[in-house]
């Protein structure tokens, strides 16, 4: 695989990823509406769809990173200044922020869920966890314990590795949807 092919692969995976991410955001809003309305059937359906899209986004990430580690050099270069703004990171993207914001109202609505709806909720939360795990897997393959894109030299950021950064995001995100069982 040459540099052009590697970049094309990275783009293809991310095109799919961003499309899935927007679907996930919409599905989360439908979960919120359904839970607020007490519509269990609609909530379960929207959760199941969100789960499928989260699983798909994890696969999209694995697909994007489906290249030899040495090819990642050109991919990483495409995501550093001047090609992108300083501190660029997918974790700070508008889309990711929108997804996180969409999670915040869900916890209160999902407290005390039980039965099939609870099972659907748990499956969705596991899928959310796996999506971050897929990100970490790709990151580890290419960057190891190196710094993230947002923490390149000269940015004044603490020297947290890309993996540590992802793990922190994972924990914060899952904490947003941690609920009590009935």
């Amino acid at each position: 695989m040459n540099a052009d092919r590697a970049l094309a692969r990275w783009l293809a995976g991310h095109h799919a990823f961003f499309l899935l991410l927007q679907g996930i955001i919409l599905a989360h809003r439908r979960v919120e509406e359904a839970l607020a309305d007490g519509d269990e059937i609609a909530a379960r359906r929207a959760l199941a769809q969100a789960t499928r899209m989260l699983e798909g986004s994890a696969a999209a990430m694995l697909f994007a990173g489906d290249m030899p580690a040495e090819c990642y050099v050109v991919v990483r270069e495409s995501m550093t200044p001047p090609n992108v703004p300083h501190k660029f990171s997918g974790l700070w993207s508008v889309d990711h922020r929108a997804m996180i914001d969409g999670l915040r109202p869900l916890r209160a609505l999902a407290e005390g869920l039980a039965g099939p709806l609870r099972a659907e909720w748990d499956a969705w939360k596991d899928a959310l966890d796996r999506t971050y795990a897929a990100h970490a897997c790709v990151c580890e393959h290419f960057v190891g314990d190196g710094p993230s894109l947002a923490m390149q030299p000269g940015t004044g950021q603490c020297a947290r590795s890309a993996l540590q950064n992802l793990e922190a995001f994972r924990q914060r995100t899952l904490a947003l949807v941690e609920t009590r069982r009935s």
Partner: protein
Amino acid sequence: MRHSAVPGISKLLLPIPQRLTPRSVGCDDDALAIEPLTRFLANGLKDSEAIERWLAAHPPIIAELLSVTESEPLTPRQKIYDRYFNVERHGGSAASVAYAVGQVMSELAREFQLGSGLGQQDLHRLIDGLSAVLETVSEC
């Protein structure tokens, strides 16, 4: 997803729905009608100058973009994609999302033909996830 310094990969390849700004922009104006989108796709604007002319003819779109992109400038082509392939601001238009899914699937198919180490299970998850996108949007 911006211009790259890498030779040969200087342009965005696909219309990517992204830069979603939830609930920040209304979608009840005429500019969101499906007809301009259809015309844009049919004409298939290729070069940046033509895209800029197209954008200049649609000032409300520029105004919207300013409100959502802030300090992050988009390429002319991205501006159009941002305008027409944004699920939220497009009111969940099944047509626009179906087009975007089709484009993504086409690109994935091409990549798969070139060879992929993605396992069968992950391949299924990827395709099924994209199907779920269509389902979700069609139910909005």
